[in-house]
């Protein structure tokens, strides 16, 4: 029945950071319920391209395989998404795989997302509770607020919003929607709020919130459905107020 059915994959490859990219086509035997990851695993098992030539296995990144880690993002048939939840049965063939263009390519489909992690460090996307003595319990968080904040906490730093944003590119140093929304998350936490002004001032720096051009692609593509544009608009309000406080002089916090 499905014995001789094949899946055709056209993969944009690159041997290392400095070498040019090229396309390679693969034909692999069809199995039921495959996703892009299992197709790539099949190529790794038997690295032979569609011309029957022996080649190097395709490099890619993956970790959780359940769309919560964000590591396996790539451009599949023109759309940036996670390869673990991209089911072969639902994809048009040939399946075209490319690395996301916003990030430096390490090899093949493997990209370096460190710019996002650097941005998270820059905005201090955490709750600072470390100290030399026990600080005791923090303030309570209201349950409805916790539920609301949980939605923002679903961000997995997958990079799809940066890939879709026309203002995140080599000509600009815009940090992109994901780290901005994390500022909103940590500024709404009762303990995180204690560093609110500091985080706002960070995103008011170059490459921060004002580089947003409101194309609103981010909210359309976010695989976790995070209200990114609402976060940005809300932070626009917060930073506007903060800038007035900073300039005209009021309590900075």
């Amino acid at each position, binding site marked *: 029945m499905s014995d001789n059915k094949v899946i055709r994959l056209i993969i944009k490859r690159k041997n290392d950071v400095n070498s040019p990219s090229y396309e390679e086509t693969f034909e692999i035997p069809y199995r039921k319920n495959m996703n892009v990851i299992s197709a790539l695993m099949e190529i790794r098992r038997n690295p032979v391209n569609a011309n029957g030539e022996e080649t190097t296995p395709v490099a890619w990144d993956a970790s959780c395989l359940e769309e919560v880690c964000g590591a396996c993002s790539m451009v599949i048939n023109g759309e940036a998404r996670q390869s673990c939840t991209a089911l072969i049965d639902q994809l048009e063939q040939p399946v075209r795989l490319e690395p996301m263009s916003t990030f430096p390519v390490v090899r093949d489909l493997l990209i370096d997302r460190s710019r996002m992690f650097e941005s998270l460090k820059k905005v201090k996307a955490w709750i600072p509770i470390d100290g030399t003595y026990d600080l005791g319990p923090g303030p309570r968080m209201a349950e409805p607020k916790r539920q609301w904040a949980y939605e923002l906490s679903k961000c997995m730093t997958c990079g799809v919003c940066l890939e879709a944003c*026309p203002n995140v590119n080599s000509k600009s140093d815009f940090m992109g929607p994901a780290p901005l929304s994390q500022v909103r998350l940590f500024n709404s936490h009762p303990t995180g709020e204690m560093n609110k002004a500091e985080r706002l001032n960070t995103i008011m720096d170059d490459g921060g919130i*004002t580089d947003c051009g409101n194309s*609103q692609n981010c909210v359309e593509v976010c695989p976790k459905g995070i209200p990114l544009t609402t976060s940005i608009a809300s932070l626009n309000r917060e930073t506007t107020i903060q*800038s007035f406080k900073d300039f005209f002089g009021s309590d900075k916090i």
Partner: protein
Amino acid sequence: MSTNREFFYRKLHSLLGVIPIGAFLVVHLLVNYQAVYGVERYNQATQFMTSLPFVYVLEIFLIYLPILFHGIYGLYIAFQARHNTTTYGTFRNWMFRFQRITGVITIIFIAWHVWDTRVQAMLGAEVNYQMVADIVANPLALILYIIGIVAAVFHFANGLWAFAVTWGITVTPRSQVISTYVTLGIFVVITFVGVRAILAFV
């Protein structure tokens, strides 16, 4: 303002687009619209505008400098974008693209328009109905004027939408949808005023 310089420039860029440039655009098009009621009415209106006290100070600080800053900084912003409407063809992404296209058209148009009118006035020409009628007597110039006016009005109307987001006025998706309709209405109304006015010179 040692740090946060970009924040200040971007906010200033956004503010200047509405006050004074947007306000000036509306006043300008309304003055033009006087031509619909006849040559005399139009000449009276321009007479009033050009005989305002401190007119050079007003022109420099409320018109020329804001437009220069908004235009030059705007070009820098416009050419930073890497457009991707083929992949992400949503309404807002197209608006994002049109905002940049119309901005570039508008600044080119304004340069030509200022040359044709203000610079000629400084060289001794009189600003009146006849001056504009002479310009748009050429059908190509009329078409370019209409394109310039529509581009400027679009850039202003859509810019109002972005202004509301940039300053944190419209935060929720619902308020942003409603302001889309409101600014669309503003675009239609002011485009009518602008285009109807220029046709009165034909």
